[in-house]
């Protein structure tokens, strides 16, 4: 580890999280960073608890891995926000907190008597961050959404899919819940910025995160190609969507695995090393011809060069391709599945990319991917909460606070 000491930057910060889905991943980022994140769940539990896959296979609200991913390291209290007494408990919890994370629809908390303006009027240091599909206002603000719908509205779907012939010509949405990931990352930046600002001003504020806008600014070249060149990009398999057709980068290896052989930035020295490597196995074809040696002689023949690379991949396994290409400073890599990532000692041992998290109830250990900026520092992830696991303790704490207030 780079820094064996703890890095829990948000230790001492309390967050109350309402809602499920879009807001949950931001809550996970806050929780792994050391904040005490209390997830308010309805009495029947958050909806994502019913989404599979489940540890052990059978549907079980305490064993949903989609819930685990977005809610590890948090606490849980079950509150019926249609019951005035539970709303009062929620309000008391907010009074003890630094941040409210609102993942409900625009206006939903307000309808429950927990609107951000009222909460902040009672508690001036409070930061309220709402994460919604489209933002708090605008013609689509009240549209209903899902991960797939967000990816479509934000432009992400339109740039992901296959070259003609590689697969169906439809847009293909990446998996994993990326709308919540992207909105969660931008929300985390805004919340941290507001926490820093409170350190100086002593006053909180309201943050309005649009998941759609977060996705729309995260597409790298897509929007610039339109804004600056008025050119529409077309989908390409496993590489940048571009305004023109281009040669494939993803090749199938002899062992059936796919391999990404990025052909950009192959300067003259790297190209010479590539040709020497291919030629040593009699597979360089015509690339040994001196006319390929300089970039100026190669640029217009990249399509052919890439075909030779593809034929070379087909005769080697992906692990060999990775080792030998990287030894020649070619930034190429196998298309890994989760299996191969977990088995690679670079991650599992040397970098400690994963944290082993023990369930104190059973002693069972579970392996979670650490957040990228916490790698190199002590593990912070804890088990996701069981429904209302922390309810009794939190209610007791609030009662204690009330008694102290009455006594004063």
């Amino acid at each position, binding site marked *: 580890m*780079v820094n064996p000491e703890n890095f829990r930057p948000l230790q001492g910060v309390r967050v109350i999280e309402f809602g499920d889905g879009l807001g949950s991943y931001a809550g996970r980022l806050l929780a792994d960073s050391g904040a005490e994140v209390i997830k308010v769940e309805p009495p029947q539990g958050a909806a994502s608890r019913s989404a599979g896959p489940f540890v052990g296979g059978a549907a079980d609200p305490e064993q949903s891995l989609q819930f685990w991913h977005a809610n590890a390291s948090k606490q849980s209290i079950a509150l019926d926000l249609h019951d005035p007494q539970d709303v009062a408990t929620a309000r008391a919890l907010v009074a003890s907190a630094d941040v409210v994370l609102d993942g409900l629809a625009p206006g939903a908390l307000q309808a429950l008597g927990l609107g951000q303006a009222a909460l902040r009027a009672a508690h001036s240091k409070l930061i309220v961050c709402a994460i919604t599909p489209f933002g708090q206002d605008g013609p689509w603000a009240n549209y209903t959404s899902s991960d797939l719908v967000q990816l479509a509205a934000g432009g992400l779907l339109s740039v992901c899919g296959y070259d003609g012939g590689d697969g169906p010509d439809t847009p293909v949405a990446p998996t994993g819940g990326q709308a919540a990931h992207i909105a969660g990352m931008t929300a985390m930046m805004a919340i941290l910025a507001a926490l820093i600002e409170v350190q100086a001003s002593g006053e909180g*504020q309201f943050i309005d995160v649009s998941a759609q806008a977060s996705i729309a*600014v995260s597409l790298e070249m897509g929007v610039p190609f339109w804004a600056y060149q008025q050119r529409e990009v077309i989908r390409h398999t496993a590489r940048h969507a571009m305004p023109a057709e281009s040669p494939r980068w993803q090749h199938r290896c002899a062992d059936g695995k796919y391999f990404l052989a990025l052909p950009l930035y192959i300067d003259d020295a790297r190209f010479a090393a590539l040709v020497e490597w291919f030629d040593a196995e009699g597979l360089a074809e015509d690339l040994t011809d001196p006319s390929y040696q300089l970039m100026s002689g190669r640029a217009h023949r990249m399509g052919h060069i890439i075909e030779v690379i593809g034929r070379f991949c087909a005769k080697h396994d992906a692990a060999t391709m990775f080792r030998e290409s990287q030894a020649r400073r070619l930034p190429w890599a196998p298309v890994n599945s989760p299996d191969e990532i977990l088995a690679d000692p670079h991650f599992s041992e040397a970098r400690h990319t994963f944290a082993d998290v023990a369930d104190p109830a059973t002693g069972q250990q579970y392996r979670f991917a650490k957040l990228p*900026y916490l790698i190199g520092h002590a593990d912070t992830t804890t088990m996701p909460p069981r429904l209302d696991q922390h309810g009794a303790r939190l209610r007791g704490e609030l009662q204690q606070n009330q008694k102290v207030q009455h006594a004063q």
Partner: protein
Amino acid sequence: MSTKLKNRPLDGVRVLDFTWSVAGPTMTRYLASLGAEIIKVEWPMHPDPMRSAMYLRDESDKTLNNGSFFANLNIGKRSLSLNARDPHGLDVIRELVAKCDVVAESFSPGVLEKWGMGFEAMQAINPGIVYVSISGFGHTGPHRNKGTWGPTAQAMGGTTFMSGMPGNQPAGWGWSYLDVSSGYFGAIGVLSALFDRKRTGKGVRLDLSQVEVGVSLLGPGMLEHAVTGRSFVGQQAVPGGNRSLDNGGATVGYRGDSAAPHGVYRTAGEGANAYCAISVLDDAQWQRLKEAMGQPAWAADAALDTVGGRVARQDELDAHLAQWAATQDKYALMQQLQAHGVAASAVQSPHDLVEHDPQLRARGLHVPLEHPRLGKQLFESVPFRMEKTELALEPHWPLLGQDTDYVLREVLGYSEAQIESLAAAHITWPEGLPVEPKVERSLW
């Protein structure tokens, strides 16, 4: 600064920025938007390659200062031109470390150490320094000297594998997601460290790996393998396409929902993006979808009223939905379904985002600003609003070497004579290089 924006959280924070390409500059762009002063350090003989990546259409006079993609990515930053490989240049860097809060770089591992500027050395100069690096594999471990670009990191870290249509090769991602998201996680790390430092007085070392960002963003699929041992080997891709569940009810989308039908349907209209995405998230939405479609006979079967019944017959439902969608405009279909409370959206292209999307227009996401070399152009704004903090993009750009004088004079307090002697020794600008270096070939 040309304008003074109010209540910006990072007012007074200064970042010494050696990053290049996309990941690091994305990180420092957000730090700039939040008020930090970003000093982008380059030597014009080896400029950030994104300076020459993408120009305006039909640009005939390409220089290192009028790249449009670069301008969007680096808005709000300052440019210091300096030869850090020269001992006197390195002295300047060392003095700047004392005056900065954050040092950011995206070199290969070991470059700063070679300069004698490892974390410990920088801490000796400035105990509160936050040092963030973004590299392919991180600065430790057996793969540390291997190289990646966005798409290779996506292959290596699993995000490519976890996207695709059944029976086909992985579809992957149509851009360098891990450049953008590594920039976001880098900014999150720096903001966390700055918050922490206010209380502890201590800086921190953040060693981000693009590949690990990918592993972390794999989400529940990675967790499923790590926790249950479910193997993905032997499959060409997660065989789910755009679905949440496969026909047997198993999770293939890891999207946090259990929706069916769930997909992307071709609509009327031309082009590659005449599609509408539809998610029927629960049984109530199914009833409302039937209403929206005018209660067609094929949807009347009561077996379809539960998600289990619909999942088992997704292929059949998709065929009917495709037929229904095929005659309608994608935006009209979206509005009609939304009016019935069904989750749906037109598949929007970047062109649509800029020209056709009333929501992003209402939110003011694409902002016209006057660039000194590009004239009035659109720039991508910050995707969140903060009630108190002004997040307007500052309309200045790091024209190469434009702020060298400012940095030496205002930040370091150098005298005229010191500045002139650095210039005379060609440490602040390469000998004989014109002020606006021409570019022969752009990347895109």
